């Protein structure tokens, strides 16, 4: 039997719609389930108070703070490095063995399983460089797989800038560097920022790479002590820090508080909401910046 093109087209369309529908249902179901289980547990108190080991009523305050602080630390390291390397790859690197090699390294690094990155962090940052379980070691481990992503995002953003824009800059007598920073980067910025926020979402939800680097415990934090060198200060980058994602893993596997299940559900809801916010935020910011930078109303 020979099907007419029209029939084939219709069947193919139906199949694609079916898969698209399936993915949406799956996503909605997953998010809905996690939110449904956890959202009843959310309260201001839950988000700000410290966890309890044996009693009910513990919160996730320090973990939430740790996650955010670790994110900031990681981004402080990866954004400048990643943008610099991305610019190099897009504009300065000559096609050849060396460039291909860098590209290979970037690809391999970004596809490493995060538990392996965590073990690498344990060996190198925690043990060899003697950082012990610390935010800094965690941030460095996250850098290992976030940096390649940042490089790729920047490179793609810069390469996406139309050649006419670059030539317009050069033809005005701008140096190559000024053309890159003042003409091409602004055009690429929405792409780069969107990608960066998506990467941030990934960092925020990461657990495996942090188990053996940032650690699975936090010291009692004194939220009135903002001296980054004090051991009980939340800002001390050399203290161990359990993040939200690690906390969920931990109470799920070894939590003994009576309300451990609810706490895990609540914390999962917080995690998912935050990651969703990162995703939506990146879209919104990308659109906003594009409109703003192009001054188009």
């Amino acid at each position, binding site marked *: 039997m020979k099907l007419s093109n029209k029939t084939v087209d219709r069947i193919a369309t139906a199949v694609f719609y079916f898969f698209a529908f399936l993915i949406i249902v799956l996503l909605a179901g997953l998010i809905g389930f996690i939110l449904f289980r956890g959202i009843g547990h959310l309260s201001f108190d839950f988000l700000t108070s410290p966890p309890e080991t044996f009693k009910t009523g513990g919160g996730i305050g320090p973990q939430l703070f740790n996650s955010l602080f670790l994110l900031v630390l990681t981004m402080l390291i990866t954004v400048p490095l990643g943008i610099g390397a991305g610019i190099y790859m897009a504009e300065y690197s000559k096609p050849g063995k060396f460039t291909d090699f860098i590209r290979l390294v970037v690809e391999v690094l970004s596809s490493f399983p995060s538990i392996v990155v965590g073990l690498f962090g344990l060996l190198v940052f925690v043990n060899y460089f003697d950082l012990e379980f610390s935010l800094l070691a965690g941030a460095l481990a996250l850098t290992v797989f976030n940096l390649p992503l940042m490089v790729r995002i920047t490179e793609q953003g810069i390469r996406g800038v139309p050649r006419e824009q670059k*030539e*317009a800059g050069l*033809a005005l*007598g*701008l140096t190559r560097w000024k053309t890159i920073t003042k003409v091409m980067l602004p*055009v690429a910025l929405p792409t780069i920022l969107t990608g960066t926020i998506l990467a941030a979402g990934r960092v925020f939800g990461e657990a495996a790479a942090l188990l053996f680097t940032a650690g699975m415990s936090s010291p009692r934090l004194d939220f009135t002590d903002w001296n980054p060198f004090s051991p009980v200060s939340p800002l001390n980058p050399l203290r161990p820090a359990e993040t939200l994602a690690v906390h969920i893993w931990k109470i799920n596997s070894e939590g003994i508080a009576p309300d451990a299940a609810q706490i895990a559900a609540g914390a999962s809801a917080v995690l998912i909401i935050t990651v969703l916010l990162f995703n939506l935020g990146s879209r919104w910011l990308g659109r906003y910046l594009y409109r703003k930078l*192009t*001054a188009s109303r």
Partner: protein
Amino acid sequence: MTSIMEIERLNLHYGEFHALKNMKLDIPKQTVTAFIGPSGCGKSTFLRTLNRMNDLVPGVQIDGSVKLDGQDIYSDDTDVETLRKRVGMVFQQPNPFPKSIFDNVAYGPRLHGIKDKARLNEIVERSLRGASLWEEVKDLLNKSALSLSGGQQQRLCIARALAVEPDVLLMDEATSALDPISTLKIEELVRELKKDYTIVMVTHNMHQAARVSDRTAFFLNGELVETDDTEKLFSNPVDSRTEDYITGRFG
């Protein structure tokens, strides 16, 4: 008439491909020189050697001498940025920056170090007037350049180039993406601009060359076949290939 640019024994290779063959051309000051010839004959390539935009092409090799006011622009002590400030360029597709009209024109001067607001205002107005765009946009300076029509965008690009005060303006088929009315406006503008600037333009349109240029150079297959006063070249060409081309027998 004194020449502002003198090109001699110019050869350009893209890798193995010999794109410009032993070319010689004088460009007199404050005139319009037009390049005509069939597609792929090397007009853009030649134009882009005049402000060293071909430097960007990997594997390009350029020999010979290209002088601006007697200075070889390919010598080691030439500062490419200074050269490109003196030899501005307008492209085939209007390519304004995705910024406001004001910022587009002020871009060059700002990045070359002019901070003073009053001075920038003055430069922007003068450049927009120079590009015959001021009357149309003086109340919209903060609007996006992308909201302008194609013809206005192209005149904005001319204004942007004028703002860094060049001596020579290169235009590569600057009207080919525009409608006839915008094209006529730019042609008129070019005739106006030659009072202060030297203009070199590539055009596919022989009538345009005849209408606006003082000198015309005919290119064919990487060779510069004939250069002469426009009137003379169109009425009485020396080379039979030129005659074939302008009478429409090929190309």
